């Protein structure tokens, strides 16, 4: 296991390096540099001078090497748009995103497991149909539209919940109230797909011979499901859960914009539009490290779920 882990960590470092290099080159090839956004009232000559001052006239490879050097010294640069250190900006936004995405992730996985298993065991009946309706709705509805619908219904008409942003006070109750609507959107986004995988995976296991044996032995249904079916069904589902996390992170950008939630998704969204290269690269680095780490955890969990899987 130790060798496997070391190997995977090495692979993770290579993946992060490749991703950062690819994103670095890609964003510099997109037309429209930051100097034209930052200095709209300058002459072209002055804008070009500003571009030189930002170090953007050097070759992309030289710029990338300089950026890697800064990373190794623990510096992510200064945001062009915010005039703040990128590390400070990311720190200020990461918490909000982790809170929203993390809570939605836990909620969607829990609901998917409970309702997916329930739907599989009660195929064709009311629970199964209800899960399908909600799942279809979540898959079909655009994130932006869903967010606006929730704001209009719950914040404007019913006035049960605030329409967006962080609470002005430190009250946990207020924090939960402010998180409910964006959290609901993200949870639905993830649940819609995941519950179908859980349902299908459980149905596939229901037909297996070991389930018939377990039932024939007189085991209670709850034991058959929790101790036998679920562990086998979860192996493919864990892969999807890992993919869901990536989708949540990208879905969060739109949700954060609709609900004015000051998270990393929105930060990167704004940075991309304004060609704020230091922020784009800093956020890319953080997100790629997080996603690679979570995928590693997902891979390691296979060994726990299925004793037949062992890592050398």
């Amino acid at each position: 296991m130790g060798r496997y882990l070391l190997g995977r960590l090495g692979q993770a470092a290579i993946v992060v390096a490749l991703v950062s290099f690819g994103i670095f080159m890609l964003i510099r090839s997109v037309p429209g540099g930051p100097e034209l956004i930052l200095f709209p009232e300058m002459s072209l000559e002055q804008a070009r001078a500003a571009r030189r001052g930002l170090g953007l006239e050097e070759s992309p490879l030289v710029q990338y090497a300089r950026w890697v050097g800064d990373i190794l010294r623990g510096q992510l640069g200064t945001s062009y748009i915010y005039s703040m250190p990128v590390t400070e900006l990311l720190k200020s936004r990461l918490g909000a995103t982790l809170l929203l995405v993390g809570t939605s992730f836990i909620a969607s996985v829990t609901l998917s497991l409970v309702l997916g298993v329930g739907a599989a065991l009660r195929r064709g009946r009311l629970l199964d149909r209800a899960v399908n309706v909600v799942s279809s709705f979540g898959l079909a509805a655009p994130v932006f539209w869903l967010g606006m619908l929730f704001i209009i219904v719950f914040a404007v008409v019913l006035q049960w919940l605030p329409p967006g942003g962080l609470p002005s006070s430190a009250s946990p109750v207020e924090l939960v109230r402010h998180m409910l609507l964006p959290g609901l959107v993200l949870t639905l986004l993830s649940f819609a797909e995941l519950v179908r995988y859980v349902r299908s995976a459980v149905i596939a296991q229901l037909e297996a011979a070991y389930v018939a044996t377990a039932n024939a032995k007189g085991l209670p249904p709850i034991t058959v499901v929790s101790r036998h079916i679920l562990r086998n069904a979860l192996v493919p589902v864990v892969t999807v859960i890992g993919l869901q996390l990536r989708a949540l992170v990208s879905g969060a950008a739109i949700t954060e914009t609709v609900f004015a939630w000051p998270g990393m998704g929105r930060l990167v969204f704004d940075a991309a539009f304004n060609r704020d290269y230091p922020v784009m690269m800093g956020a890319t680095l953080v997100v790629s490290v997080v996603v690679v780490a979570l995928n590693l955890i997902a891979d390691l969990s296979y060994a726990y779920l299925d004793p037949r899987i062992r890592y050398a």
Partner: protein
Amino acid sequence: MSSFRGRGLGRLAMVLSVVVALTVVACAPAAPNASQATGQPKRGGTLNWPISGNPIVYPFTQTATVNSWPVMQTIYDVLVVVDPVSFEVKPSLATSWKVLEGGRVWEFELRQGVKWHDGQPFTADDVVFTLKATGNKDYAAFHQLYFADMEKAEAVDASHVRLTFTRPRGNLLPILAYQIFIAPNHIFKNLAPKDAATESVKHPIGTGPFKFSENVAGDHYTVVANDDYFAGRPYLDSVLFKVIPDTQAQIAQFQAGTIDWVQPTSDAFNALKGRAGIQTVQFTANLLVLVALNNALPLFSDARVRRALAMALDREGIVKSVLSGNGRAAVGPIIPVFKWAYPEDVKPLAYDPQAARRLLSEAGWSDSDNDGVLDKAGTPFRFTMVHWQSQYRGVLDVAQQQWKQVGVDAKIEILDSAAAIGKYRSRQYEAAMTWWTPPFDPDMANYFGTKGVNNVYNFTNPDDELLAKASAIVDLKERAALYKTFQQNMREAQPAVFLFYPDDLQAHWTRVHGLQPESGVVTITRGFNVVWKE
């Protein structure tokens, strides 16, 4: 095993929810605490104001000005202010001024007893530093171009400043009123220009009616009342600028009552009109929407061709359909908001496709191969218009169709805003739909002058001398006569297709009093010291 008939139920659910959504939007009630009461101003409370992005609160910023300036106007002061209705120039940090040598030298007497938020006294040194820095390329100030010809800025004594220019500057006062925020010399003199922005944004110090309190980047920016403000402590205790990037989200938050003011879209504005507790305001904005044409290209070098493109467009129809009637067809770059300079008797080019075809024919364009597209010496009349996904996106489709009817093939290229602006600003474009807001003065030399740094049209302007003369004159009537000639000439020359002047649409809850919406969405926050809430 039952069949899986979920898809039908899923579709039904979707249809039902759309119906519900449309119904609730129509039935949205007024927010609580909407008040009709007027009377004596009340002290206290927080005004919740939306901005669409993070502000950079730095006096010389060029970046994100539409988000930054509304905040800066509460923290900083300017030397003079311009009344948004009468355009009369009024004192602010400067109490009086003298025009000498025909406008080449200006002397200002400064207000006594004004303090910076850190308690230091405001003096002539602050004004001298600010204007020198504004003209200094190292600070990359928004108005650097307007002070490039300033020869000298000197403190005559602690309360008098003298400015000397290389040429007469008749339009100096409106420029000074337009976001030339006076910066504290005692703070900035110790900072190198390249570090000034990064240090300043941490804790901005101004002389304005409100002081910096808190900046939660990306969420909100809070300012609190300045008890020592020279015009008296504001009625409000604080202003909370909420960062809400999406316009629809702003409208929803306004309806929910969590913000006090909004700039809605045309459709939302029409829906908000007449709602209890909401005051809507509509007037011609300080904005011009146009299709920029790259005059350096052979396609657009002939004024007859450019005029034909303008006459082939039903701009009144575009205003009615795309803007829901909230705007007016444009004549030229002098905008109606400059009432003293806008010549009402100079009308827009009429919508006349026949006349457009005649002009194009005179310019040598004909459909020699009967493919529906005009051509000349083997070159078809075909070009690409760039733009981004804005609220005026629909105008491009209409323009494309109407130009097709006169044999012009216009392709639409939608890019993200940075790429589109990049192409446009670097003159790497054929045509581009865009808009701009001039400062408080109709001086167009920087934008439409032949050597204007922002002449992205590559337009050779025969009125360069006229523009230089107009900007040197102090008397508004004399300037207005020259600008009338300029407007007429620009209407004929059409370096860009001047589309329309959209209306400024605003809505606020009637519990908020004292707002001056006519100031425009960027400058309205300047008057927050007299705003109060129920």
